[in-house]
Each structure stands twice: as C-alpha cells, then as structure tokens.
C-alpha cells in the first residue's frame, strides 16, 4: 500500500469491501495483480467495469476532448476538437449519461461575453456523433441529464426572465418546465425519484431548492441556506441531495457539505475532519450510500478527500496529494476511481496551482497531465 493511503475501515464495512473487491478482481486483471500483491483496493459501491475518463483540455480557441484509461491518463485518445469563442471553453454537464456527454459553448464568431447565448451540444462517445440541441443556452449554467440520458435540462435567459427547458434528445422536442423573473438565478439540479425537477433558486433570502412538474407551480422542497449554496448534486438513486453552503465556523466563513434526504429516509452526513475547515466538491459514490468530500489542508501539508458513509460505516480517506488538497468531481461507475481537481495550496483563498488527478481506491494517484486547464467531464464504459 502506498505511504499516502489512509484507510479506516470498520468491521461493519468489511463484508461490503470484500464483496466489492471480489467483483473488482473478476472485472479487472490489472486490479487482480495488484490485489494478489497485497494491494487490496478499498472500494465504494460498484455497478460496472472498464471505465474511461472523459475530459477536455482547454485551448484558447478549441478544446480537445479525450478518453483515457483511469490508471494511465497519459494514454489518452483524442475524440473531438471543439471550437469555441476565444478564451471561453466548454461548460459540461456533470457526468456522462451512458455514451452521451453534453456541454454549453460559445460558438466561434459570437461575441465572447458570458451572457452571449450559448450552444448546447451532445456528443455520443460511441458513435462520435455530435448534435446541437439548442442555441439559446446560458453558458455558465451547466446542463443536466435526466431519464438515463434521454433528456437534457438547460437554462436560458432573456433579460431578467430565466427558463428551465427540458429537451428530449432523440427528437429535440422541448418544453419550458419553469420560468420566472429574477434578479438572481435559478439552476437545474436534476429529477428526484418522485419525478420532480429540482432546481435551486437564489434570492435575498438565500438559497431554496424547489420541485416542479410540467404545468404545475413549483413547490419549496427545502431552504438550503441563508447564503449562496452551490455544487448541488443528486444522489444517483435520486433519494437525496448534497450541496455546499457557507457558514460561520470559528472566526471564518467556510463552505461545508450538506445532505438532505428527498424521501422519507433521513440522511445525515457525519462530521469529519476539522470542524472549522472548508469542505469541497461533495460527490456521491455510485451506490448513493456515501459522499466524498475534499477538505482544506489547514496546518498539515496535505489533506485527503474522504468518503463519508451515510449508513454508519467509518470514513475512508483516499490517497492524499503530496501537498495541498483535493476537490472530488466524479466517481467512476465501478467505484474504483475518483476524478478530482487537486491544488497545491492550502484552501480556497490560497489554492496554489491546480491540476487534475484520478485517485484510485488502490491507494495510487494518476495525474491527468496537460499544459492547460483540464475540464473533467465524466466516465464512459464501453458496452
């Protein structure tokens, strides 16, 4: 095991870990070799195998879309070159939906400003077919997949009017799910298990999360914060939601992760790490049973991202960087790899340099090297 790997596995989690490890061994010869070498991976919920990391390298006038094996990111395969307005890269949906990735982008030749209507595209990684879905999207608001990739929800604006638009990808039929006049903003989150489209609304009262269905007025699901919350993520099974919200701890304002159950089941995120420290990038494990959060380095030179169980298991600290902290982004569907952004600094006000990394549950870290910014998009599994 790597010197950098920290694991805290309780006896209650051992059966789960063993089962997942067996599945992982059966799936991957590479992992088998490692396991036989005594490098038994600490796994989170598993669903599939052979994931490939989907990411883009930012370019001044075109982003390069790549696919790479998670433990060998340098062996990347160029999928597409996505041209855009100078300086303004793609803004992808968080995660792929099967073979589909989606993103907003300012087309080359348009006014390179943040409020210029953006194009919304879908790329099928299996066929490399690119489809333009819309030309009126808000660039800075990432689209959201729904219905296993059959549907996209995006935001568009006209003056102070903002609309959440649902598009069926197959035939591009669209409907406005919700529209409102606002000085601030509404942000699509995704569809809850009960069928509501969840969205966040900013106002002078802070951040509310609402649910809405076609033709029905939205209803308040919960008040998330008196401040601006962010990084909303639905659990893969739609049963809960996570987000970051600022709060006063010690003498500072720090962003902390929260979990809210969307059904009858109460979901409680255990407190972990420094009680006054910042947390980053709450990311659900594929089985929806745990949340992975990054944390500031504080007085230590490095802080690991930690898997926080919502079902009572002990936290699992992933392999930390040599220096700095990690911001989780996306778990691979098999739960073996976490794509993350990693910083050499201490916290949000002293980030140092930023890069991308794949953190294996085997205790290794696989840097996603690039001369420019890496935009993490999702994971793709060949059928």
């Amino acid at each position: 095991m790597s010197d950098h790997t920290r694991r805290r596995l309780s006896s209650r989690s051992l059966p789960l870990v063993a089962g997942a490890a067996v599945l992982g061994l059966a799936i991957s010869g590479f992992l088998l070799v490692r396991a036989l070498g005594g490098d038994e991976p600490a796994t989170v919920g598993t669903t599939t195998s052979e994931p490939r990391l989907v990411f883009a390298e930012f370019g001044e006038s075109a982003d390069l879309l790549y696919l790479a094996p998670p433990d060998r990111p340098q062996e990347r395969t160029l999928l597409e070159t996505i041209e855009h307005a100078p300086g303004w890269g793609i803004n992808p949906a968080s995660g792929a939906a099967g073979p589909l990735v989606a993103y907003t982008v300012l087309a080359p030749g348009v006014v390179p400003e943040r409020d210029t209507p953006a194009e919304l595209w879908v790329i099928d990684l299996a066929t490399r077919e690119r489809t333009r879905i819309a030309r009126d999207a808000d660039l800075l608001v990432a689209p959201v997949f729904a219905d296993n990739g059959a549907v996209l929800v995006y935001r568009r604006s006209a003056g102070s009017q903002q609309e959440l638009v649902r598009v069926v990808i197959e035939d591009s039929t669209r409907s406005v799910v919700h529209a409102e006049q606002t000085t601030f903003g509404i942000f699509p989150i995704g569809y809850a298990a009960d069928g509501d489209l969840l969205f966040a609304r900013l106002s002078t009262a802070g951040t509310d999360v609402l649910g809405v269905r076609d033709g029905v007025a939205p209803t308040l699901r919960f008040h998330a914060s008196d401040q601006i919350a962010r990084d909303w993520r639905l659990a893969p099974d739609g049963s809960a939601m996570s987000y970051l919200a600022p709060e006063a701890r010690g003498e500072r304002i720090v962003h902390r992760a929260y979990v809210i159950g969307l059904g009858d089941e109460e979901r409680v995120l255990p407190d972990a790490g420094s009680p006054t420290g910042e947390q980053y990038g709450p990311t659900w494990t594929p089985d929806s049973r745990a949340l992975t959060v990054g944390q500031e380095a504080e007085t230590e030179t490095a802080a690991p991202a930690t898997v926080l169980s919502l079902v009572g298991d002990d936290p699992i600290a992933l392999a930390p960087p040599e220096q700095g902290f990690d911001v989780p982004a996306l778990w691979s569907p098999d739960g073996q790899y976490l794509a993350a952004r990693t910083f050499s600094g201490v916290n949000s006000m002293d980030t140092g340099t930023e890069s991308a990394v794949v953190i294996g549950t085997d205790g290794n870290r696989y840097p996603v090297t690039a001369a420019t910014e890496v935009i993490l998009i999702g994971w793709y599994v060949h059928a």
Partner: protein
Amino acid sequence: MRKRTALFVVAILGVVLVAAALRSPNGTADACAFDPRIPFAYEADQSRTLYRMAIDAAATNSLLPGDPFFALQPIERGVRSNRADAAPFIPPVLLKAIAWTESTMTMASRSTPFDSIGEGLVTFDCGHGIMQVTTGMTVPLGSSGPSDRQVTIATHFGYNIARGAQILAEKWNGAPEARPVAGTDTASDPAILENWYYAVWGYNGFTGPGANRSNHPLDPSFAAWPRAAYQCDGTQSRDRYPYQELVWGCMANPQSRNGVALWERVNATLPDLTSPAFFTPLSIANWRFPYSEMDIPTPQPANLVIAPAVPPDLQSRIFGSPSLASSTERLTVRLDDPTTPMRASVTIRNQGTGILSWVASTTDPFLIVDPPAGVALGQGLPCNSSGCPNGTLTINVNPTLLPASRATGTVTVTSPSGGGTVTVTITVLAEFEVGAPGTSRAR
C-alpha cells in the same frame, strides 16, 4: 363578405402594429454606430508602446486634459458619508489589464497586422477598440450616421483609451449613490489598487449572483469551487471567473511582446471570502440597490500605485496637428464602360502630424462609402500596410438607384479630430446602349 374581409385586414394590421410596438416601444431601435460596415483604425506597434503610454497619460488625465468630453473626470474619494471629488487618477496597471482582458490591447481586428491600418476591432455588441467601448456606440436605426465622438473612439486609440478610462471612472464615481464603496478603512483612496474592486466589476456589468452576466465572486455559475487564480496566459477558460478576477489575474501575470512586459507585475489582493469582513457585505441578502450594505474595507496586503511620468511629447505624437487632404476632389465613374470598375478610390492624406480620424458621408443614395471612417497618419508613425500612411476611401455606385444616366453626387470627408473637411464630387456615367426595355433604370 366584403365586410368580413375588411375586418380580417384590420385585425391583421392590428396584430402587426401591436407586434411592432412590442418590439420597439419607442418606435426606434439601435444599431452599432457604423453598421453594417466596419471603420478602419491604426494598429500601432506589437509592443503596444504607444498604447501603454496613452494609458499612462489617460490614467492621470494627461492625455486630453482640456477636452470637454474626453478629459478624465475627478475621482471621488472618501467613505460613504464623506465622499468628495479628488484629482483624476486611475492606477494605470488596472487600465492595461482591462485593455488586455478586453482586446489583448489591440485597436484593430486580428487580420490587421501591427504597424498598419486595417479593419477596426468591433464586436457584435458594439464593443469598439482597445477598451471595447460599448457605451454610447450605438445609433438609432435610420439615423444620419455616427457622431464625431463615435468616429474618434472607433478609429483612434487615444480617444478609445480616454473613453475607456472615463467609463471606469464613472463606475468608481457611482459610489455611494448607486454602488458600494471599497476601501472603507483607507478613505477609499483611488491610488490603492484593491479599492477598484467594485468599479472593475461594474466595467463588465454589476449584476447579481445567478444572472447570466454575473460577476459575483460567490456565484455558483462559476462551476468549480475553489478556483485557482487566473493566470492570464491562455491556459484557463474564462467561464470560471468573474470579470474582476480576470483583471486581477492579468495584473499579476503581465504579458510580454518582443521581450517587453506590457505592464508591471502587481499581485493585487482580492477580497478574502472566508473573512466575515468581506463575506458579509457580499452576502446575497445585501444585494439591494443602492448596495449600501456592501461596502468593504481594503483587501490586504494592498498596493499603492504612484502616478507614472508621461513623456512631454506624447500628445503631439498621438494627436498632433492633423490636416486633412484628399488625392482628388472630383472623379468620374463610368458604368457604361465594362473595362472600368464601378467604384472609385480616394486617398485620404494627413498633411499634418499625429493620427487623423476621418469619416465619410453622402446624402446621395446611389453612392456607398467604404469604409465609413478611418485614419490617416502624419509623419513619424510607423505604418507598413499598403496605402500607408494614408487612408483609402472607396466610393461604390449602386446603379439601380441612379436618378439619371448622368448623375452627380458628393461625398463629404470630415475630420472630427481636427483638420478640416473635403468634398469629393463624383460624376457617374451610365449612358448604355439599351437593346431591350427595362434593362436600365438610368435611361
């Protein structure tokens, strides 16, 4: 039946009128000042030497100090309850970083080489030139043409920079009536770079979190939190940063050309969003006009900027004493001679010094001038493109609008930056031998 038809027509007319009224509440719409054509401008040297000197001068009101429109206004200083006019001053490095963020500090389009005259940099939202000036750069549709100010801002980098500095100063002076104050603990001293946080935010749009033009630093629209500092080197997407962080990042990472740094490196401090002193004012609850709860102290460590020295001959080099002249004041276009083009060119000369801005106009509908405005250079300004140092005005003829087979029109070329007026008389001959009726409206 006839009555029903009449009612139908009236209904259709009503719908059209209502639609027109909704589209244009005042009965007018705006277009960019030179639409659909592009004015020409002078792109100076690649090291931006003249631009940098002009920015230094504009920042201290040494560029056009006596001009009733382009002089830099006094900059207010003091806290909310005690704010008063003070000397006009903007930290020059701020203007340089804004110029880089807006246009990579260029006056002309990318297709125009340095040290030459070519198409100006004009974006679809009517942003013009180095400072991407949009304010005041539109005209009502159907108006008679651009104003003198619009011509100089679009064609002459000196006026463009002066106007950009003014706009930034307007954003600063918007406090406290309509904007928050930055620097409550330093008397909001404009010589402190960090105190320009809100003014720079406003240069790109002072909008609330969640709006599609938001520059609020806590806006969840900026996808990644936390975000590394902007490096200003083309390696990071702008999607992730509010405008003021782009400018701060550029100040800390000066670009170089030909071994020359385009501005001095300044590691300006951003508000510490983990500190209640900054987080609380930036709370969404405080986003209420006139934003009086958003006042912040000076982010520390702060940078005090000293006014730069401006070369004494700068004004004469940039503006000089231009004098307008043309290669001809009378020309003929023969449409009835297939061997000659349906257009004529006029060379616009500057017999004086500095940069002469010119604008061409005509009241004759069959004449089309292109470009609508441009520049001609006086002695001493490097210029390598064809036609340099002169401007070239092309006069095209639209034969379908000729009032007769022999028509005379005039094009007036004026120089709003001083230098006079030239009138060019164009005679158009279109005396075709017509073999069939209807082939020429001219006869």
